């Protein structure tokens, strides 16, 4: 609590005292950067991520980071991060990343500590509002996945090489372990399936990223892959397996093994215009085992086969004004894209069109407004919509961010 108050005070102090165009704070050789943002969202039908139907301000985040260059090729740093979006976050302060970075050569560097996980083009910067046009990134980066793919504790080997003929290749290989809290967004996602998570256990996590910037100006292509397993205990009253089957009563243990999230991406920058497209596949084997003491355990195997994609375009019209839009689709079960196995077919997809306007009031303050038209209920949480999920939702977002 004291730390939270101290951080809030520090950020407020910074916001009030620093000139609006501040670049950074520096104390001796420690560089200090941070941001704070407050959003507002309102939707016409379903509640989306928060109690948005009546309009909500439960939509904010802030971070502060400290870095120091100890030697020309060695620096250390850490970032504290807090956020609130609906029931998730609740402004609890977490260590977002904290590591030592040793760049041995251009080809090889090492990082040790808590490191952001590469996932598609923008996962590492998903929380940093002022670095992008959009308020909400497309569902490839859906908010509930943050706790699962944000960062890991381990070792990162990275580097790049410039080939004369084919261009620049960058790579990153991370190995480590990650911890998922029982009140994370992932828990909320499982909660929609009737599971109240009481314990999470995740072991080894491995990730890789390969980005190729060919000798075509503005183009980069790449792939990221994340592997890990999750074991969890859950209390449940009712667990629907599909429209026809469900488990009633006993508590469950589930194991998500061979968990693999792959994203293929391409980004093309033409002057002030940026096109991006990504395709995500999420595969795993969900093994559910009943935990009743009165009966023999029953085991169910539910293969996970989730796909998501989007196309986006942003254009900076003036020095301080930018527009952007995207169209995205998310299928929780890619083998049932028409939702035939769901209780209502539109639960089988989430299709979303978004348009955003960003206005940079100064180099440090940005205001954004964004509209989403959503078709489908695949990412609408039943616990947020106790009267049932409707097929279509319109969402309006406003956000003001300050960074230094």
């Amino acid at each position, binding site marked *: 609590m004291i730390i939270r108050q101290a951080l809030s005070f520090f950020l407020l102090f910074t916001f009030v005292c620093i000139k609006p165009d501040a670049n950074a704070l520096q104390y001796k050789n420690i560089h200090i950067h941070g941001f704070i943002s407050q959003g507002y969202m309102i939707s016409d039908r379903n509640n989306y991520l928060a109690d948005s139907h009546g309009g909500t301000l439960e939509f904010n985040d802030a971070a502060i980071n400290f*870095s120091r260059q100890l030697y*020309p090729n060695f620096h250390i*740093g850490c970032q504290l991060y807090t956020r609130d979006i609906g029931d998730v976050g609740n402004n609890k302060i977490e260590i977002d990343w904290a*590591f030592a970075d040793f760049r041995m050569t251009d080809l090889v560097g090492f990082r040790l500590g808590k490191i952001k996980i590469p996932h598609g083009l923008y996962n590492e*910067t998903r929380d940093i509002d002022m670095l992008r046009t959009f308020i909400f990134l497309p569902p490839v980066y859906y908010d509930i996945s943050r706790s699962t793919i944000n960062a890991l504790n381990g070792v990162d080997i990275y580097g790049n090489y410039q080939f004369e003929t084919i261009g620049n290749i960058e790579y990153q290989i991370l190995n480590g372990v990650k911890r998922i809290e029982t009140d994370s967004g992932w828990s909320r996602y499982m909660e929609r399936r009737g599971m109240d998570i009481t314990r999470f256990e995740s072991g080894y996590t491995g990730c890789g990223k390969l980005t190729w910037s060919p000798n075509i100006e503005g183009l980069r292509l790449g792939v990221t892959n994340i592997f890990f397993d999750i074991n969890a205990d859950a209390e449940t009253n009712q667990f629907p397996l599909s429209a026809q089957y469900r488990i009633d009563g006993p508590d469950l243990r589930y194991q998500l093994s061979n968990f693999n999230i792959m994203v293929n991406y391409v980004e093309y920058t033409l*002057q*002030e*215009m940026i096109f991006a497209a990504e395709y995500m596949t999420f595969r795993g084997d969900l093994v559910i085992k009943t935990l009743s003491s009165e009966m023999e355990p029953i085991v169910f195997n539910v293969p996970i086969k989730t796909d998501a994609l989007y196309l986006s375009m942003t254009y900076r019209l003036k*020095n301080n004004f930018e527009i952007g839009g995207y169209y995205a689709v998310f299928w929780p079960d890619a083998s049932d894209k028409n939702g035939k196995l769901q209780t209502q077919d539109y639960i089988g997809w989430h299709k979303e069109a978004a348009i955003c306007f960003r206005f940079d009031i100064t180099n440090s303050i940005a205001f954004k407004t964004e509209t989403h038209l959503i078709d489908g209920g695949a990412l609408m949480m039943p616990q947020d919509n106790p009267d049932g999920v409707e097929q279509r939702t319109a969402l309006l977002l406003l956000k003001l961010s300050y960074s230094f």
Partner: protein
Amino acid sequence: MNISVLRFYLILLILNFFIQIISNTCVYAISVKIIVHPEIQDSLSANDIRNIFLGKKTQWENNQRIRFVLFTEETTYRSFITYYVRKTLYQYRNYWRKKVFTGTGMMPVMFNSSSQCIDYVNRTQGAISFVPATCNVPNDVKEIILN
């Protein structure tokens, strides 16, 4: 107004949009010179310059650490970044902010006067920077030749 006329206007509008983008391609007069510490090699490729200022190339050929410095006077800064790094100034600033907020890099050293840049390059081993072409560079700082 029938559908085909509407369609014609729509096509014109889209074409106009792309023509505007292409015509907005600013061909900056390269009125900058790249300067390096006297002990550094004489020539560099365009890819080298780009990679140095993106933090991807961190060592000279003699394995000495590269220390690049940005000269932030608006006109020179913008033309250098656009021409050599092939990004807009906004994209370049965001590129480094991304590194700062993910911990993968630190903000480059910046000066807003050319004399500070020249002085830094002169006294720092492995240093590289850029100044306006009109700027007088002392003999003990080397001007780079692009391959």
